[in-house]
């Protein structure tokens, strides 16, 4: 009896041991002088990002003796893995985060707050572009991250199509944009591309229009205020571009995979509202001189309370986990990435703008697209609501707009009552 029992138990133990041996063991806990860094995908591929970052990391190692291991995480995974790391208390030391996640991530308490003292170790608060820093956490609290790449929306327009339609200069008001769009919409071509099924794109435009109409998505206490008259007008104005003005292809109502950019690159549409589309357009063989870049339009006669905002502050921030074992090394790395030299190198390569004021005059950022974006960032961009429910706002309002676009595309008339109903329903689903 013991023999047979032993054989079975031994087999079971071997099974478990075999499982343990089969997998590869990842690196043991951080040694001093090493850092783990999760970079987001900013370039044309994960591999390309690695190629771009590695020389800078080597440079950092030469300067400080700290070795940084980088993993480039695709956007589809990044938030999930950040969540897992925050939950478990285990993970990288330094991460890139999308700046719209800042308030939510701040609420987890898993990241080192960049109070004035900590900011001083990375060069001081005043170095950063104020709008960019304001998008790194809730107002009244120290930012949870520092901005490293900055982006804003701009109006891209096809020069050749403009000339052919007799439009001499890019529109500066929405009314002008509609007029231009109508001239461009014929012969299978359209005036404006809209990424109607993309929840976050919808939410970003919702923000901008709402600001111009004097609306807010959350009141100072943090309660949602989705269905105010200003917001209703704002959303309706955007949806009407397809529903009433008909300058956008109804098919755009199902665009969620950046087809808008492709349509613009292929000359099917004359105008595009997008964040720093230059690199993507170049990858799709559209030469930089084939298009012009202008600031996003404003309303011709803004209502009372309307703000002069034509873009949300987009960008990437860098955060440090509290669970890091090498806090000083991590902060040194942050200082390195936000240094003048690295800001120029990295932002030039990625086509974004530096988040520090000190290098905005650099020659690398004087191309027309960069100038237009810089102007927006510097003067007319505002951060999305920095509240913990920001992601609910994006999901609920973005989805409501997606449904409105779907209705518009199938020919249903869009009334103010419809818009208000959708926004009310969205507001009622906000929790917390």
């Amino acid at each position: 009896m013991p023999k047979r029992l032993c054989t079975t138990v031994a087999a079971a133990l071997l099974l478990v041991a075999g499982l343990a041996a089969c997998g590869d063991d990842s690196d043991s806990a951080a040694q001093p002088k090493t850092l783990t860094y999760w970079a987001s995908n900013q370039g044309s591929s994960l591999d390309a990002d690695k190629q771009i970052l590695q020389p800078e990391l080597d440079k950092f190692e030469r300067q400080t003796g700290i070795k940084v291991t980088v993993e480039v995480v695709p956007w589809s995974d990044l938030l999930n893995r950040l969540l897992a790391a925050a939950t478990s208390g285990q993970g990288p030391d330094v991460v890139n985060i999308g700046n719209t996640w800042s308030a939510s991530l701040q609420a987890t308490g898993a990241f080192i707050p960049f109070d004035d003292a900590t900011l001083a170790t990375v060069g001081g608060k005043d170095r950063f572009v104020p709008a960019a820093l304001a998008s790194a956490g809730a107002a009244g609290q120290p930012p949870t991250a520092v901005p490293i790449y900055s982006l804003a929306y701009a109006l891209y327009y096809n020069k050749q199509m403009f000339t052919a339609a007799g439009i001499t200069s890019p529109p500066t008001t929405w009314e002008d944009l509609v007029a231009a769009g109508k001239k461009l919409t014929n012969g299978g071509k359209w005036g404006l591309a809209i990424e109607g099924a993309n929840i976050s794109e919808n939410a970003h435009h919702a923000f901008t229009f709402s600001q111009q109409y004097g609306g807010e998505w959350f009141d100072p206490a943090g309660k949602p205020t989705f269905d105010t008259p200003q917001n209703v007008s704002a959303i309706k104005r955007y949806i009407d571009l397809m529903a009433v003005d008909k300058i956008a292809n109804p098919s755009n109502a199902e665009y969620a995979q950046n087809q808008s950019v492709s349509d613009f690159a292929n000359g099917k549409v004359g105008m595009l509202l997008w964040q720093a589309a230059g690199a993507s357009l170049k990858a799709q063989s559209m030469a930089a001189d084939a298009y012009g870049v202008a600031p996003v339009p404003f309303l011709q006669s803004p209502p009372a309370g309307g703000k002069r905002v034509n873009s949300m502050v987009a960008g990437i921030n860098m955060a440090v986990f509290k669970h890091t074992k090498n806090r000083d090394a991590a902060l040194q790395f942050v200082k390195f990435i936000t240094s003048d030299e690295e800001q120029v190198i990295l932002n030039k390569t990625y086509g974004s703008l530096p988040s520090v004021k000190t290098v905005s005059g650099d020659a690398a950022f004087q191309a027309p697209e960069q100038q237009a974006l810089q102007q927006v960032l510097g003067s007319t961009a505002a951060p999305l609501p920095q509240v913990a429910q920001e992601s609910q706002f994006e999901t609920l309002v973005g989805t409501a707009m997606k449904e409105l676009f779907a209705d518009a595309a199938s020919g249903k008339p869009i009334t103010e009552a419809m818009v208000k109903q959708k926004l009310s329903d969205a507001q009622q689903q906000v929790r917390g």
Partner: protein
Amino acid sequence: MATTTAASPQLGSQGPPGSSPVRSRRVRGARRSRLPYILLLPALVLELGVHVIPMVVGVWMSLLELTQFHIRDWSTAPFVGLENYRSTLDVDTVTGRELLHSFWVTVAYTTASVGLSWLLGASAAVFLQRPFRGRAFLRTLFLTPYALPVYAAVITWSFMYQRDTGLINHVLVDQLGVVDHRPFWLIGGNSFVAVLVVSVWRSWPFAFLCLMAGLQNVPEDLYEAAYLDGAGFWRRLQYVTLPGLRPVNQVLLLVLFLWTFNDFNTPYLLFGGSAPHQADLISIHIYESSFITWDFGVGSAMSVALLLFLLVVTAGYLVLFRRRRIDA
């Protein structure tokens, strides 16, 4: 990690029924009655560790207010009892109504998908019974969707469904001229049919496989006898094939129902993360209304509610089938 409960050896209840416990076997019987527990041990440990315990923790999560504020240290999450359930299942609120709507959509979707997959699988299995040249090739071809990575398969369908550039509209509108205006497939009313077709495309090979195997077990002579009795194709199907397939069907239909009901990948990849209202399947609805906004307590509550529903369905299904078996 839980260990199995080692019951004390039970003499007289060991061994296959009908075997008489002989004196010389009693000693071995005492040994043997511990053996099943040992044999079961690895499976039990794995199931407990990977399925059951996380599930229990998940249920516990549904009783907490677990949001981004507390995710780092669950001990700080306030215990709210059934509040998460109350707030999400309350059909007077928009949230509750949306959840209920998505539930009905999923019931319709699952029923149709399982039904169609079964129908296609059975047709293919029946018609591929008779050997002919190219049968092996056709069998493998029909199994190919099962082999393809889900990401690529569903993305391909989303291409085909594109209004302006997709194959489906190209054929329907440009080439066949069946419809005048180009329909939308990924938004609007057609989206339900769209996701249903993709689901059937991906599941019917598995049904085909199981049914094909099940058919092998139906003795050829039964068909012969029926044929000689003058039974035509449909009669043979009704009296020989389908009864012979009952054991396979019992397993297959239940399993397909459960898997399809819980299917997340297909709608998520087809609709790019947010499903249109008409195709708001419950797995993606739960994901969007909770997990994506860091509200894990509510998400878990919705998932547990879903689980309870499926338990009820399964229990009812098993009772139904068992009764039919006794009758048969």
